[in-house]
């Protein structure tokens, strides 16, 4: 009887835990992200930032991700790819980079992470050996001190908050939630601009980002826009 009880408990526990993630072979963009909805967005329940302005991938052929050393990505992301790069004013949704004709897309991720690879396979001719640029705006009603930006990316990436370098993540990385954390920083009242650049050779590419407070709790008391 005790054994039966234990088995039943285990079955119920599994049933309760299993928000089963059944496999799905479709790769349409709307499975991963959709055009940004009108108005401001909010972080998800875990604090992940889902609204981003994404630039069509920039061709940067690399046969392997093992070349992404700190100096390599710092030099690569240090080049100028578009006007206003790392600036306080974001490009407009739908606008194009003058020289390359690459287009900016305001998107809302449907997942905790941003599937750059599927963004590319659906909207761009190239999806391997590329650089992705992303930007978003965190709008705070009050100053939020003593937080850190936590991010993960596949593969290497750099991150900037309000024009200051916040994170560099080198190497052949897999995207791991909360893989790296910035120094403690203050989200100022009003607009806070976050820029991110991700480079990938072969394989899939994505990133995730959120702010955590000193206690490790997700910061959620802000809105997200891309203007």
């Amino acid at each position, binding site marked *: 009887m005790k054994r039966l009880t234990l088995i039943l408990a*285990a079955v119920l526990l599994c049933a309760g835990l299993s928000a089963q993630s059944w*496999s799905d072979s479709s790769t349409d963009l709307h499975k991963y992200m959709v055009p940004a909805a009108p108005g401001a967005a909010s972080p998800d329940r875990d604090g992940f930032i889902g609204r981003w302005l994404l630039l069509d991938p920039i061709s940067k052929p690399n046969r392997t991700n093992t070349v992404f050393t700190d100096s390599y990505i710092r030099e690569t992301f240090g080049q100028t790819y578009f006007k206003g790069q790392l600036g306080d004013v974001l490009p407009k949704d739908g606008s194009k980079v003058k020289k390359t004709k690459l287009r900016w897309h305001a998107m809302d991720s449907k997942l905790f992470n941003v599937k750059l690879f599927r963004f590319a396979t659906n909207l761009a001719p190239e999806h391997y050996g590329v650089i992705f640029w992303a930007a978003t705006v965190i709008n705070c009603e009050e100053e939020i001190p003593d937080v850190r930006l936590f991010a993960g990316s596949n593969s290497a990436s750099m991150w900037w908050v309000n024009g200051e370098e916040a994170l560099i993540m080198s190497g052949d990385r897999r995207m*791991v939630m909360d893989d790296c954390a910035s120094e403690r920083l203050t989200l100022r009242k009003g607009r806070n601009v976050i820029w991110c650049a991700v480079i990938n050779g072969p394989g899939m590419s994505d990133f995730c980002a959120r702010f955590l407070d000193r206690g490790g709790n997700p910061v959620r008391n802000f809105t997200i826009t891309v203007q």
Partner: protein
Amino acid sequence: MKKILSIAVFLVLAGLNALAQVGEPYIHDPSTITECDGKYYTFGTGAGGLISADGWVWESGAVRHGGCAAPDVIKIGDRYLVGYTTSGGGLGGNHDSRVVTMWNRTLDPTSPDFAYTEPVEVARSEPDEDCDAIDIGFIMTPDGRLFCTYGTYFGNIRIIELDPATGGRLPGSRPADIAIDCEATKMIYRDGWYYLMGTHGTCCDGVNSTYNIVVGRSRCVTGPFLDNMGRDMLRGGGRMLIAAEERRFGAGHFGQIIECEGVEKMSLHFESDLDRSGRSVLAIRPLLWRDGWPEAGEPLQDGNYKILSRRRGYALELTVDFVRSDPGMMPFWIRQDEPAVALGAQKLEDVIGGWPSGEIPVRLSDYMARPHQKWTIEAVPGAGGYLGGPYFRIVTEGTGRALAAAPGARLETVPEFTGADRELWRIEQLVDGTYRILPKEIPGQAGNNDACAGAMCLISVADSTPGLGVFDFNSDNCKWDLKRH
């Protein structure tokens, strides 16, 4: 010069013996090591695999049909189910792949019963979906259900249920996503938890391969698999199990071997072994468990050790007179104005003249860092071994006096190590990090002492009295700590 070279070669080989499988253990993506009719087998990417009679010396010769990538094996009843993948991993230019399974009644290619059944497809991935159906790993649950995981960095790791009677996909079983950004997954079960091992890092880059094995756990076979920080493996979570060693890089493709209660090992490959021209090699390491999580044990390295009983903490020592050291006691009640200086410890030459020249028995006593309590443990080249380790000799440090099993399940030391089986010791790290120490042979006892359960090992008969007795993982009498000195 030639002598120096010879010594150098010997030292290199000795190092090899302690840390890596010997023979020709060259393989990539090894399947879980599986025993069949007294021999061990593992298959790799490509058509072949390795065979070992003792689990230490490996040679090529295993045969798997189908070639291609990353197989796994599980024994079900009296048959062996072998799974592999037909393409994928970008091998054919995309991620179009099939996972297939087939049966064989034996893994011995020389057996008249050796014949693979026709492979059947159990899972697949389309060229561009978020999955790459390679790297199959089997798991049989405690209630007899059979599952397999598969997938690579290209998308999700998936699980499906198989029919243990046919090896085919269970009708109605639907693939579920359980992790991302892994390769070479393998699930195991222990104490109410399912553990999902996955390989992270860079594959196939030789000495620069950053492959490493991580783990998450779940109460359910279908997840969610959370790491020690509570991160879901579907969000990249995973706690490190094993990464690179000093001279081996690219740890991947976990497999578990449970030899008997308390004795577990894991198989894997290192993609590059600096001691073997940087080739990809099979490795076997102790599998430990701490606080509900698996950890990699260390292969025992040649060196000087104290051997401490877990029963009381006493040290194994020769039964010889305790010789007092000078300068004895400095009076603590009298002020000492001279600067403190370092004093020498008692040396072997200070005491060895008083030791008997023949056999000397051993006993256990509190450790006092005396020569009769210090032991050198060294792998014995050419003596063979057991699953994951070579036979060692245990000699009093600075001498050839060797610990040996004696008739009547007794212990003694012989004046010089001769290489006899009774002087060879199997030393295995247990799941709790302690060691068990077993003689290869006990005089007067038929056959080699090479079973796992029921084997005779070094035990504490009493706090101060060692002997040989049947191994029992649940008794501290059978466990030892090996601490370098």
